[in-house]
Each structure stands twice: as structure tokens, then as C-alpha cells.
């Protein structure tokens, strides 16, 4: 079965709510999900992403402001973080791993076995990202203590994903 937008949104919400309620003891507020052809948003803060591989391939990401990342990490690690450091980056990477990992497990019911890459976290200002290929992203926003967290997933059958259209997507390195 090909995962449609609504199904994917439900999977992402279930996975995110499960991780935040179990590991952080907090309930996320849901925002309105939508589709977007753009990669995860440019700007300031933290972008953490992880690759999915199998008969379907893609990327899952978690992005938020630095302040939000500190709040999440403080709750996750039960310590006070007021600025982004190694602990905060590691905490956000692990949150991403758990959320997207649980999305992967739920997707496997429909798409068969999938693999998960090691998460990568970017922290900086005025950075942009691009995913090679013409993907549609399912964008699922949440709110945590007044801060916005955005979880995005893009998926495509493997054969389509390995044939990017030329002149459409160019990877731009992060600029701090």
C-alpha cells in the first residue's frame, strides 16, 4: 500500500506523541499538517535528519529553535540547558532517532522492511537544506511549551528516488 498524506500524518503524530509522552512526560499540541515540495525550513536553530532505506526511500527530519531544543533536552535529560551544547545536539539526535524510528516501524507494516541511518544534526544560523530528487514532504507541526517543532517526512519508491531530475535540486552547505 502506498502511504497517503493522511496516513503518514497519523503515523508521525502517533510516533511523536509516543516518544514525547513516554520519554519527556509531556503532551505535544498538534498543528495543522500539510504537504510541501520544499526541504525542511531554512533559518536559525536545529535541524536533525535521518535517512530511510528499503523498497521505499526518503528522509525524516525534526527542526526547532535553539530555545526549544534546550527545553526538550532539559526535560529529556533532567538537567538545565540554556544554550546549545553537545548534550543538546545529542538529545535532539536521539529524539529524531526515536520518532523517525517509530515511524519506520509503523511504515514497515505497509512497505516492508526498511533501514534507518544514523541521525545527523545541524545547528546554526541562516542555513538551508535541499534533498536531491523531487520529493513531496509531509509536514507535521507540533507545539511544545509555546515553541514550534516541525517533523517532516518524504518518501518515494526506490526506483523513482534514484533518478533525480537535473537542474532542480542543488545541495547547499550550511552557513553559520
Amino acid at each position, binding site marked *: 500500500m502506498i502511504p497517503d498524506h493522511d496516513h503518514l500524518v497519523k503515523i508521525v503524530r502517533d510516533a511523536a506523541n509516543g516518544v514525547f509522552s513516554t*520519554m519527556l512526560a509531556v503532551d505535544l499540541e498538534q498543528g495543522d499538517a500539510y504537504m510541501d515540495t520544499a526541504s525542511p525550513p531554512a533559518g536559525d536553530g536545529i535541524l536533525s535528519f535521518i535517512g530511510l532505506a528499503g523498497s521505499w526511500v526518503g528522509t525524516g527530519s525534526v527542526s526547532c529553535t535553539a530555545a526549544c531544543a534546550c527545553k526538550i533536552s532539559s526535560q529529556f535529560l533532567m538537567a538545565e540547558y540554556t544554550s546549545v551544547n553537545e548534550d543538546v545536539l*545529542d538529545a535532539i539526535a*536521539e529524539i529524531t532517532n526515536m520518532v523517525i524510528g517509530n515511524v519506520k516501524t509503523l511504515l514497515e507494516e505497509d512497505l516492508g522492511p526498511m533501514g534507518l541511518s544514523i541521525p545527523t544534526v545541524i545547528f546554526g544560523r541562516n542555513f538551508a537544506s535541499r534533498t536531491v530528487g523531487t520529493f513531496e514532504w509531509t509536514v507535521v507541526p507540533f507545539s511544545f511549551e509555546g515553541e514550534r517543532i516541525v517533523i517532516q517526512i518524504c518518501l518515494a519508491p526506490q526506483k523513482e528516488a534514484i533518478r533525480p531530475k537535473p537542474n532542480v535540486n542543488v545541495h547547499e552547505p550550511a552557513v553559520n
Partner: protein
Amino acid sequence: MDVLIVDDSAAIRKILQRVLRQAEVPLGEVFEAGDGVEALATLKSHSTVGLILSDINMPNMDGIQFLTAVRAMSEWASVPIVMITTEGSQNKVMEAVQLGASGYVRKPFTADQIKEKLTGLI
């Protein structure tokens, strides 16, 4: 009891230490490793380890390879190894159990789930 925690996430290693204390596990020294290679080196130099908690998806040597290597060493054949991982596919669970995992906990986890899994193992 000396415990070895194997996970590439320092955050999870910290959380598991806290959870073990909450679960009232009689902790001795807690060793940490970021992957299977580091974990094997730790075991070689610390024969007192009585419990291993290991992730599966890790760089260099993953948890399944680490589990296989540990079970191949006679001195570690009976040490409890609990896999704690995001990997939730039934195939991975079965593979880990067949290779000698003593238990399997999926992330996210609660302290009670870890405590319950350790009951009877230590």
C-alpha cells in the same frame, strides 16, 4: 553489579543510568560504550560486568554483531544482554532472541518497562 551500557547516543546512556537507579538495580560500576567495538574492548578489560544493555543501530559494529561476538565467547555466554532499541521490526526482535538476547525493549521506554525486563535476569 557492574553494568555495560552500549549506545551511540550519550543522551540514552545517561537516561539508562538514571533508569537503572530508579529501578533500584544494585549498581556497581557502570561502563559506557558508543558502539560494539568499544563495548568488546570494555568487556576484555572488565570481567566483572554482570549485565549488558545494548542498542542495535550503531556505527562500526551494530548491536546484532556485538551480541553475536559476545555469545561466541564462552566467558560471556550467560551474561544477560537486553537490547534497547528503536528497531521494532519483528524480524529484528526474532534475530536478536535467536542470537541469545535475554530481552528486548523498544524505545521509547519507561523505567517500569526496564525494571520489568530486568526482573529475573539479575
